């Protein structure tokens, strides 16, 4: 029996790139590296216009507070530092580097100097921090903070390979092609925190990956590969921990509060690369799919623009209406195609313009949203209370617990933009407090 949770749904998968091997995208002539590719305080540029930078050189950091360093993904000359709109629609500082195609690596890049079993927590955290690794599943929480904060509080590591969003296949391919990197990264985190147990969670629509990973682990590792039911949002860490261990993370708490640390598959692989080669996080796997001629799983240098990636995949197959960074359920619609990909870009989905006759918005009280809410809320009523400006009822019905996974809205036959109402409601509730 596969592990599962109550609620959720199974959207049409559309994983058309599941069989397409990961391909390395050539470096572009210019990259734009955002100073803020993570949750927390933006980094500050440590280079200036005209500087020469090596590939993998740290070009921005911020030692104050929750932050994560950023690195050059190509070697060349800094041609500008400017403000641009990032994929969230916010203004962020970007360092623009003109590629000299020499690919000269930063001389300080070197593998971890000691064997793994002699490495301490502090050393591993420092290594992860210097590599600029932040959560690559989309939430982009700086990983070194996560590991350091889990000290003496957790007893199990969970590697999240669920990939429950439709379309995306980057983790699936990574498991098949670089399964050892994922397992290696897990072992590094286990060593850092002194853990004896690790679950690698994979949905049962990726049976080949499950079988492959099982052949790569040994009995004494303390690692087990867990088959999860294919259901969205299985990859949400709350649902994941509940499915595996039947523990609910209390409202407002984090996995560490219930003794768990969850890292994404590609994050784990990035930790392994940083440890074994010293390479910082300067590229990532992106599933490029939807309305492009040649959908691919691409390993892309960070800072490459969306339009260049689309061109590399054969260009658009029609008039594009929307470009989504991340999955279709929770991803961000991009403002323009010049946006540069960042550490959290797991996928780029190009959507064609389509004419659809829609019904006027009307909740028919069918209860589908209630049944599919993984947080066990009553979304239809939350939408109603938002329309009625009824802040008291919104609080009573726990609007702040909504994780905005979009299950309710995906299902709604009455065409009600429930999540959008809830997002507005959260603002109202915050204001009233």
């Amino acid at each position: 029996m596969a592990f599962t949770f109550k609620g959720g749904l199974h959207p049409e998968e559309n994983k058309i790139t599941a069989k397409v091997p990961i391909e390395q995208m050539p470096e572009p002539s210019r990259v734009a590296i955002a100073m803020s590719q993570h949750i927390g305080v933006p980094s500050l540029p440590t280079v200036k216009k005209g500087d020469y930078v090596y590939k993998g050189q740290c070009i921005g950091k911020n030692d104050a507070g929750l932050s994560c360093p950023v690195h050059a993904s190509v070697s060349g000359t800094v041609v500008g530092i400017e403000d641009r709109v990032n994929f969230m629609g916010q203004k962020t500082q970007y360092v623009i580097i003109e590629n000299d195609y020499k690919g000269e690596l930063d001389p300080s890049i070197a593998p971890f100097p000691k064997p793994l079993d002699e490495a301490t927590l502090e050393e591993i955290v420092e290594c992860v921090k210097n590599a600029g690794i932040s959560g690559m599943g989309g939430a982009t929480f700086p990983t070194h903070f996560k590991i350091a904060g889990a000290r003496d509080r957790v007893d199990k590591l969970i590697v999240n390979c669920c990939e429950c969003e439709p379309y995306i296949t980057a983790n699936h391919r990574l498991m098949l092609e670089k399964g050892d990197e994922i397992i290696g990264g897990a072992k590094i985190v286990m060593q850092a925190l002194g853990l004896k147990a690790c679950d690698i969670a994979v949905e049962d629509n990726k049976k080949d990956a499950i079988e492959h990973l099982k052949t790569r682990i040994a009995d004494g590792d303390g690692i087990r590969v867990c088959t999860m039911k294919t259901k969205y949002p299985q990859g949400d860490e709350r649902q994941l921990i509940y499915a595996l261990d039947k523990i609910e993370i209390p409202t407002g708490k984090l996995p560490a509060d219930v003794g768990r640390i969850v890292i994404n598959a590609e994050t784990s692989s990035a930790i392994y690369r940083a440890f074994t080669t010293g390479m910082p996080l300067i590229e990532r796997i992106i599933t490029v799919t939807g309305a492009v001629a040649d959908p691919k799983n691409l390993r892309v240098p960070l800072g490459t623009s969306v339009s260049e990636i689309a061109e590399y995949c054969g260009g658009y197959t029609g008039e594009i209406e929307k470009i989504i960074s991340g999955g279709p359920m929770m991803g961000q619609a991009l403002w323009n195609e010049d946006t540069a990909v960042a550490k959290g870009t797991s996928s780029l989905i190009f959507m064609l313009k389509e004419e659809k006759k829609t019904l006027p918005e009307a909740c028919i009280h069918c209860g589908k949203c209630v049944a599919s809410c993984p947080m066990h809320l009553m979304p239809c009523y939350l939408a109603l209370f938002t329309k009625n400006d009824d802040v008291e009822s919104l609080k009573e019905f726990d609007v702040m617990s909504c994780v905005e996974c979009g299950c309710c809205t995906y299902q709604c036959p009455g065409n009600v933009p429930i999540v959008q109402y809830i997002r507005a409601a959260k603002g109202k509730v915050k204001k009233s407090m």
Partner: protein
Amino acid sequence: MSLLKVSSSPHVRHEDTTRIIMSDVVIALIPSLIFGVYVFGLRALFLTLISVLTCVLSEAIYNKLMKKPSTVRDMSAVVSGILLAFNLPVTAPAWLPVIGGIFAMIIVKALFGGIGKNIMNPVLAARVFLFASWPSHMTRYSAPLESVNSFMIGAPDAVSSATTLTDLKNGIIPSVDLFDLILGKTAGCIGEVSSLLLLAGGLYLLVRRIITWHIPVSFIATVAVLTLAFAPDGVSNITFMLYELFSGGLILGAVFMATDYVTSPVTRGGRIIFGIGCGLMTVFIRFFGGYPEGVSFAILIMNLFVWYLDRAFKPTKFGGGRKNAKA
């Protein structure tokens, strides 16, 4: 390249819309309609068409006059029209579904805000309204397989026939064969007679995940348990219970009326209590009330409790309850 559309997630939607759901309900009702035409003649179809046309036009005209977006495409008016006709005897005059349809669509549905906003099932409210206003038209049942004038505007002549409910009310087992009763060869309203085909329609809705089992099962089970326990002296309990289940509008009510989304609860617990309430009320009215049938009243009364049931069965939010072993 033209400007990109920027909207917040989710960016994909399930294809099931209200229109598709309502169309599924229509599909589920068609076998019973065909059977109604078979036992009661073409007039059954004639009345159904009038009813559907009235409901659709009422909604369309109201939307137009009130300058509201048209909701006719959602198919809900078609469902209401069919169900209203199903609740009429075939001997009803042709103007009865017209008045009923206008009452259902305008007074009960539109004036409360249209689809999703009405607090009572429009069809049942209209049925009760017609029942109170023209009791003789609403209770004159022709015998099955007897021909009536198909396209007459007024009430056609027919030898009136008692329904099995009247016998049951008097504490006797009806003379109709139980198998014929379940199949639907009995006197009654156009769409309520064939329990078998109504259950088949319900099964289709279950398979298509349009309805859940909670309301029909708890409703019918409650009636079954009570009629089994309180069968009158001198008759077999099981036989009495089976006749109670397949007489009148119980199956039509439990499968198609009580499960109306708008006027039923959204949680499983709420739905079970709702069904039990409908069952209790139905049996009380059948046993102790002034009418032989209580399904419509039972559902209408329970409709009024929907908000309270939803609130009472509000699920415990994830991370807010008991299961926090380690917290």
